[in-house]
């Protein structure tokens, strides 16, 4: 009895020492060395791929943002600022309160299933809203024209991208709102389409922040 107790204690002691030594290797040395390499060779990326406009940091090329008007009195969710390209659903374009609205302190998805009543409602509302706000004189958007990424929220809630289709769909509206020509805005979108890596990895997409920064630059010139 006494013997087995001492043996157990000895074994647990060995376990503890093993854990402490391996913690030093994998929990202290490893992350510090990687951090050193990362900060030395790729400091921009290691710190979040910050992106600047007019000399000011305006976010990260990896993290989505909202492009909304200031909140009006009595409003719970702000309206989208239609001058700018809009990202995936957030307030206004489909009232989706579970999405983290690009505030970033908490990432995550809605976790709603395909037959969930809330999700069906959000998708319906978003589709109507997207078709509605993007229809301008001479350019009518039908609900069936709206791509899936425009009416669903992403896994992280921070998706920085929209599909090429959704960017194209917004061209007429953005041109009208900013008094630019459609061809000018379309060219901006075309310039910002990222294709699949090596032609097959991932999906073609447009980075909304980078596109809006370019749009702002064009407006400053005109």
């Amino acid at each position, binding site marked *: 009895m006494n013997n087995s107790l001492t043996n157990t204690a000895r074994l647990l002691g060995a376990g503890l020492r*093993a854990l402490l030594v391996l913690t030093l290797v*994998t*929990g202290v040395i490893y992350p510090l060395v990687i951090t050193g390499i990362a900060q030395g060779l790729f400091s921009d990326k290691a710190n*979040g791929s910050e992106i600047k*406009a007019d000399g000011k940091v305006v976010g990260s090329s*990896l*993290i989505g943002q909202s492009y909304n008007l200031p909140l009006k009195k009595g409003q719970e969710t702000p309206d989208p600022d239609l001058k700018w390209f809009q990202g995936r659903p957030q307030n206004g374009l489909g009232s989706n309160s579970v999405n983290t609205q690009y505030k970033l302190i908490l990432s995550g998805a809605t976790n709603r299933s395909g037959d969930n009543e809330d999700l069906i409602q959000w998708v319906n509302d978003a589709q109507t809203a997207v078709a509605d706000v993007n229809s301008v004189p001479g350019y009518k958007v039908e609900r069936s024209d709206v791509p899936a990424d425009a009416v669903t929220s992403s896994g992280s809630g921070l998706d920085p991208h929209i599909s090429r289709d959704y960017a194209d769909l917004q061209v007429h509206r953005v041109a009208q709102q900013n008094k630019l020509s459609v061809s000018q805005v379309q060219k901006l979108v075309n310039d910002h389409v990222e294709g*699949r890596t090596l032609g097959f990895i991932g*999906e073609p997409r447009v980075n909304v922040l980078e596109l809006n920064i370019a749009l702002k630059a064009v407006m400053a010139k005109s």
Partner: protein
Amino acid sequence: MSPVLAGVLQLLALIAALALVYVPLGNYMAGVYSSDKHWRVEKWIYKGIGANPDTEMRWPAYLRGVLAFSAVGVLFLYLLQRVQGALPGSLGFASIDPDQAFNTAASFVTNTNWQSYYGEQAMGHVVQTAGLAVQNFVSAAVGIAVAVALVRGFARARTGELGNFWADLVRGTVRILVPVAAIAAVVLVACGAIQNFSGIHEVGQFMGGSQQWNGGAVASTEAIKEVGTNGGGIFNANSAHPFENPIPFTNLFEIFLILVIPLSLTRTFGVLVGSVKQGYAILATMATIWIGFTALMMWTEFSHHGPAFEIAGGAMEGKEVRFGVGGSSIFAVATTLTSTGAVDSFHSSFTGLGGGITMLGMMLGEIAPGGVGSGLYGMLIMAIIAVFIAGLMVGRTPEYLGKKIGTREIKLAAMYILVTPALVLIFTAAAMALPTPQNSMTNSGAHGFSEILYAYTSGANNNGSAFAGLNADTQWFNTTIGLAMLLGRFVPMVFVLALAGSLAEQKPVPATAGTLRTEKPLFTGLLVGAILIITGLTYFPALALGPLAEGMAS
């Protein structure tokens, strides 16, 4: 190019990359566990532990090593979380409550990485790197060690000795996991994953105002999280978060990392038992199931059944634009057929059948290719069951790799395959029968049931992914899922090591004309069949109530 074709090409590229490293990595790992030389750094570590790495252990001693090391791991991680509030470098986060700290400690030590907390709102730098990430390494090393012990049971004869646990633990960590993770981490940073120790800070936005960012040792954690088939992310969105998985290439790369060690271990197995063809047969079984599941997943996700997806015109809810449906489907299958549980898209928002495939993947026992180590030993247990079934058909005493599968061996194998289903079904039934656990559901009806079934399936099989609509941070779920994880990890290990001991004692039986040729495609077919039928019979009633009901309705 259509998204479907792009998805298929990504799968083919992945297969090619895995095939390229299969032989070198598999051979290297075989060398790691059979070499009698110690590296200098390992000698220092053995001195620190106070263990002689050359002492051979019989199975009870090996098991005691596993259990002692893991018990200390749970306790240490529990205490670290409990005192977080007083630690420096904790980003101002408070100490974790007892039930959640127990759940998280059990989760990371068992290689599950189920997370009932929100990463960026709960765990500071110290707990993340010196607590959770350490278990990402060592729990993986323990898994490989147990698998290697079983392989030695087949390879050795007339001895009860299975090797030295401390040596296997240290070598797996130092020679395999740390180097692979270090290379992977640098690749991830170069692609945009963050790696810093900043606090929570404000960053300006385009429209004015600011966003709050968390710093973190993300790339270094992400690398071992995938390589060690762990899955616990720094951020709540896990590998869907752009800081963890920034571009389409990293998505494919992370899937590669998840699969590379479990698949290559079949080569290690082949080398160690002296017949690489036996390794190929096991590999073929894993690959058949994995590729089949991936094809099914792509089919159901691209065809997007379900009312909300039909209106939207695609199953993009919970998926990132940069990965698309193809990349997300490949990731979802890889993560649930291994014990990883990292996600690049949210399984709860997959189609009904897609969600069912993720669950079925875990229910197979995570053996195709499974977690690091645990996948191999799980698959070898199924191989024993398969030769037993074949033996019954022809009326011969079954044998596998020259070892007789007698009463003791088949009893141990049968006990092994009963543990997790028992845990999953009993806990799910209890949660559904009691009034309060159901309050945690986000969705109702069949999908609500699926949330709970998924939670216990994920816990008991040490996966860690979730139908994340379930609010799992309650005393009930923290405690019961914590228990499911511990029992689902260590009880099967007892049977595996006992089996290894009993095999190592046997003398090999020479192969005769009547021996089932386990390196042939016929055996692979038999093994795939046995796996699907055993899992199907066990879980079909439960699956019918959840994902099948949902999938049929839409």
